[in-house]
């Protein structure tokens, strides 16, 4: 049994408006996805905007209710709905948010921000709490004196680290990181990514890393799932995906990554041209009538591709 | 009825001919200046004439503007048989009139559009309408029309306020009203112009406004459903009458233009046109100064001192048929039996207490200070507007706080700290309500409270709005037990008979006062023997004294009505029995005089 098992997860949003709203076709933000994450690993979720990555992450942590399917964490099924009632067991899953500006309450001091989970789950005296927060701050590389500052007094990277400190305060086992660095400048981005790897080793953390930046995903992840319109098109190890992409959509995604080496421009052109031709020609082979991906089929032990009928 | 706010009284005969209607206790808006025209800032009604001095020669024709002072538009129920507000009656009086007129003492004369004869027993009246009395559409005013008016008002579907004791006094009217009879047996059409009405009871009141004298044009309204007449265009948009002017155009609620009715039975009117427009009490002076109006129906006395010297108008004045009073709650109304039930243990039951309260108030000063002498200390419950019956020899109760204190002391109301207690030592708190309306209402009531507190009575004032006021004093039969004293005002009808206000079976007997003597006097006042004016005077003299002794209520102020008139107006008068009629009104020049 895997650490985290996601089985046929569906999250649909009702599409409605007004009082006497006639229910129309729901938005199928996540439409039947399936994956496992092993402890200590980093799992990357990639896809274009609107493909349902965030929704998946939010469904796992319980911020979105699950329409159907199941999420099993350490053998226990997570139900959606009221987060606090599931108490202790929820604290093992935490989240890092995309926007370091809006994810910290601007009216709260660092102390209050980081101690929020502690106050909810652990009964600590004020001085114990302060000590814990200071310790956490040190762990994320901020000076312990910062506890009385407000978020706006920090840079983006520092804020993101405050967010991380808050997420690791309860010593979670799984962290869902939704685009943790896309709001940051390259140099700061590096800082956060390095740090995430450091604490992963330190606490044996498992990451579900959501990103559309393939460079980052490649840098960070052991396993990758590619999403398209709420479904998976391909899943495999990082090498499977980058060195041996099978689905035309994956290929297209990978070919679109700009290359840092200008000398390879021509090469890239050609490659992209090929992919594009293939995409145009073979589109029908990869997607169903409704333009959605087929169910995943294994092509190796670790590598799964959404293909019709085949193997 | 009267709306809250301004206490305008009708200056021309009104259809609510009998008894009384309430007026608000204080008159409209404020004012007075630091430099009054009279040296002491005081005026007296005796200085005013009710007849306009004629200055200059009348020109032919002409048009005048009449200002109807009201802060709301007039309702527009333009028929004597249906209207209910005073503003409407102001409009009506220009184009319609009653068939009977009366003299100075409000007794019917034979000068009007109809003449009358009374039978020996005083119960049967025979009326003859003059031949030349015609509706403005040319049709003659007939006895049939007069009967029709009675039939409509007596009809159960009738929606106006006229079905009153004058009608129930007609033989057969009750049966007709209840649907038991198809006709009113007591009314008979003798010929086209002759009508006979038989009354159940003969009383002197019949001669003073007791006869319904407003015919209803049957050829127009005869075909209508009674319930719909008051809303019909013939009432609202092109009303008809037989008065000196006829309606030319109406802007609903705002203004009416009248043109002369050349066929008027008294003769052709002098004026070509009369324009009537509603003006807000706040704009009267400005309108008068600029000649925007030539005359108005009434003028707030508070504004008089500032405008006494207006060069272009002459102020006419007369005594108002009204008085303000303090009422004491002495009992309850029994709705079942339809009569008052005095309560011997009522808080205000002790006449000494009431007397002391009267003694404690200085109405003389109130009249002088608040009203510049144009309201003055009232003595009895029949105002001097009825000079024949008002007992000017009765001094009422004069201001004497020492006396008041003494009476209270003697009666056992002992001082306990700031205030007096009941004779049995219990706490005495007197609840006093008074009506809002106008700027003076509150200070006036407050003044009374202070006066009473000055003699050690703990009086609590509550100012309430018109509707609540009458609701609480018991106009609907439910007396509010929390009211002990109230300040009200009545505008009395042309008939002096006060039984509608003080009779034991009158719901408007708000003090709920009853005594054998009172019953006797009131009954005698309208008995047959009272046809003799001397006798009647004596009866009411006794009654006025009784009231001053018993004090179920005490009058506080009598009032003057003032009517400014542009100097160009000729042949104009206010009040009754002046022998001047609207068709005679003329002007001495084309345009009104304006303020210099």
């Amino acid at each position, binding site marked *: 049994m895997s650490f985290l098992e996601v089985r046929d997860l569906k999250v649909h949003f009702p599409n409605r408006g007004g009082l006497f709203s006639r229910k129309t076709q729901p938005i199928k933000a996540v439409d039947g996805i399936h994956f496992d994450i092993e402890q200590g690993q980093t799992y990357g979720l990639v896809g274009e905007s609107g493909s349902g990555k965030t929704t998946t992450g939010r469904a796992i942590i319980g911020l979105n209710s699950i329409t159907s399917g199941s999420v099993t964490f350490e053998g226990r099924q997570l139900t959606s709905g009221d987060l606090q009632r599931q108490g202790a067991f929820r604290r093992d899953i935490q989240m890092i948010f995309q926007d370091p500006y809006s994810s910290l309450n601007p009216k709260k001091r660092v102390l209050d921000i980081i101690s929020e989970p502690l106050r909810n789950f652990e009964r600590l005296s004020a001085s114990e709490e302060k000590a814990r927060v200071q310790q956490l701050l040190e762990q994320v590389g901020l000076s312990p004196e910062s506890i009385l500052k407000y978020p706006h007094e920090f840079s983006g990277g520092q804020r993101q680290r405050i967010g991380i400190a808050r997420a690791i305060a309860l010593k979670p086992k799984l962290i869902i990181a939704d685009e943790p660095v896309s709001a940051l400048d390259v140099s700061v981005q590096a800082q956060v990514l390095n740090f995430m790897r450091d604490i992963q080793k330190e606490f044996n953390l498992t990451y579900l890393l959501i990103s559309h930046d393939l460079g980052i995903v490649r840098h960070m992840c052991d396993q990758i799932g590619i999403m398209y319109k709420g479904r998976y098109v391909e899943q495999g190890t990082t090498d499977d995906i980058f060195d041996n992409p099978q689905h035309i959509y994956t290929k297209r995604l990978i070919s679109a990554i700009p290359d840092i*080496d200008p000398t390879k421009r021509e090469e890239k052109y050609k490659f992209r041209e090929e992919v594009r031709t293939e995409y145009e020609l073979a589109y029908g082979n990869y997607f169903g009538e409704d333009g959605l991906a087929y169910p995943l089929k294994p092509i190796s032990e670790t590598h799964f591709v959404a293909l019709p009928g085949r193997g | 009825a009267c709306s809250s706010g301004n206490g305008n009284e009708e200056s021309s005969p009104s259809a609510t001919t009998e008894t009384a209607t309430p007026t608000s206790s204080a008159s409209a808006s404020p004012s007075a200046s630091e430099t009054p025209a009279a040296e002491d800032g005081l005026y007296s009604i005796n200085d005013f004439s009710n007849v306009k001095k004629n200055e200059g020669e009348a020109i032919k024709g002409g048009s005048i503007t009449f200002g109807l002072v009201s802060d709301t538009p007039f309702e527009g129920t333009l028929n004597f048989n249906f209207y209910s507000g005073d503003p409407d009656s102001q409009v009506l009086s220009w184009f319609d009139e009653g068939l009977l007129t009366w003299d100075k003492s409000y007794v019917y004369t034979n000068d009007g559009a109809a003449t009358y004869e009374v039978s020996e027993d005083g119960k049967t009246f025979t009326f003859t309408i003059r031949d030349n009395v015609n509706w403005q559409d040319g049709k003659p005013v007939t006895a049939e029309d007069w009967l029709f008016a009675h039939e409509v008002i007596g009809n159960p579907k009738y929606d106006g306020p006229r079905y009153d004791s004058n009608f129930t006094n007609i033989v057969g009217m009750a049966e007709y009203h209840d649907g038991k009879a198809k006709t009113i047996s007591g009314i008979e059409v003798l010929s086209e112009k002759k009508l006979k009405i038989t009354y159940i009871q003969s009383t002197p009141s019949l001669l003073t406004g007791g006869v319904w004298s407003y015919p209803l044009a049957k050829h127009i309204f005869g075909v209508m459903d009674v319930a719909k007449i008051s809303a019909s265009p013939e009432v609202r948009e092109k009303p008809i009458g037989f008065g000196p002017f006829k309606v030319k155009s109406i802007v609903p609620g705002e203004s009416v233009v009248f043109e002369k009715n050349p066929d008027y039975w008294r003769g052709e009117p002098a004026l070509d046109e009369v324009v009537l427009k509603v003006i807000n009490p706040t704009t009267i002076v400005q309108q008068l100064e600029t000649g925007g109006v030539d005359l108005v129906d009434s003028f707030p006395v508070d504004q008089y001192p500032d405008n006494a010297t207006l060069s272009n108008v002459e102020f006419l004045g007369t005594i108002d048929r009204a008085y303000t009073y303090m009422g004491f709650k002495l009992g309850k109304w029994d709705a079942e039996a339809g009569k008052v039930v005095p309560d011997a243990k009522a808080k205000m039951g002790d006449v000494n207490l009431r007397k002391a309260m009267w003694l404690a108030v200085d109405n003389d000063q109130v009249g002088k200070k608040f009203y510049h002498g144009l309201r003055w200390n009232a003595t009895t419950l029949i105002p001097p507007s009825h000079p024949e019956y008002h007992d000017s020899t009765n001094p009422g109760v004069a201001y004497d706080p020492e006396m008041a204190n003494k009476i209270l002391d003697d009666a056992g109301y002992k001082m306990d700290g700031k205030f007096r207690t009941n004779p049995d030592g219990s706490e005495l708190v007197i609840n006093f309500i008074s009506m809002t309306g106008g700027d003076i209402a509150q200070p006036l009531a407050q003044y009374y409270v202070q006066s009473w507190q000055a003699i050690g009575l703990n009086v609590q004032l509550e100012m309430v709005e018109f509707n609540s006021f009458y609701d609480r004093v018991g106009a609907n039969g439910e007396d509010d037990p929390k009211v002990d004293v109230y300040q009200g005002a009545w505008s009395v009808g042309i008939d002096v008979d006060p039984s509608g206000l003080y009779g034991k079976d009158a719901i408007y007997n708000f003090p709920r006062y009853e005594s054998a003597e009172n019953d006797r006097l009131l009954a005698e006042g309208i008995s047959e023997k009272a046809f003799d004016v001397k006798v009647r005077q004596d009866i009411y003299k006794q009654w006025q004294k009784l009231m001053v002794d018993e004090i179920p209520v005490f009058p506080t102020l009598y009032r003057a009505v003032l009517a400014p008139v542009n100097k160009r107006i000729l042949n104009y008068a206010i009040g009754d029995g002046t022998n001047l009629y609207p068709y005679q009104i003329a002007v001495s020049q084309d345009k009104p005089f304006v303020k210099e």
Partner: protein
Amino acid sequence: MNEALLQIEHLTTSFRIADQYYAAVDDVTLSVRENEVLAIVGESGSGKSALAYSIMGLHTRAKTEGDIYFNGHNIARLSPSKLNKLRGKDMSMIFQDPLSALNPLMIVGAQIEEVILLHQPKLSRKDRADKAVELLAKVGIPRPEHTYGRYPHELSGGMRQRVIIAIAIANGPKLLIADEPTTALDVTIQLQILELLRKLKADSKAGIVLITHDLGVVSEMADRVAVMYAGQIVEIADIYTLISKARHPYTRSLLQSIPTAGETKSRLHVIQGIVPSLQNLPRQGCRFRSRIPWIDESAHEEQPIMHEIAPGHWVRCSCYKHFRFPDSKEEELRHVLP
């Protein structure tokens, strides 16, 4: 070497903040030739957009000093009406946020037509409409007639960006300034837009100023690169030189911090400290000094100037000569910040 299409000399743009002027663009000298893509890279807040706006004369409340020669004419002091003759015709601009850059209450067709009308007033209504549709087709919008009547919010991000490009190229500009044209877009869409720009350049031989912070995009597109830091150009070189032989510490750090496909799982380089805000810029000496504290202070120049270390390769301040990446102990230092 032919005459530069755009020649910027000693351009300084200052914003007024609390009664004082602060230079967001500080003494920038640059040139762009025809048929050349000049990329400007730098972290957020380094003054890239401010520079672009200065070229277009779009600042309303900034003080601009220095000279901007366009086609040999100095346009830095041009009157608005003269400038308007150039803007949208000879030089035009593509904006970062394609939604807010379009008027939400006008159909996109009308917005394209407007720029045609402004510079080719003689064209009839119909011709203009035709031209607009033609432009929409040219930027690769599938059903141009249909899209013509759409409102901006009805289009996807990529489509909007194409509309903006259509507006920019409507009158065949000689100079195109693209301020982060793909930052808001997905990689696949980004690629399409970049290809579109490339095609346009090939067709019209226009000069393009491409502003971005993505070095990947730079290496795909640029002929030459200018690296900006804190309002100043710190390094200029052709793309090949810059990627392989960058000298300025800032450029080198930037290149090191990108997680590239090649070396996976290693630690990324992190530039110490933060980009100082406009008010807190060090106005004296080397601006990058505080972010490489392990390099000896004396390595910096007092008044750093641009050094041409190879033909066409300019670097600011001589500290580049002494720069090395920090060893692990020095790395530790940065872990705990004040």
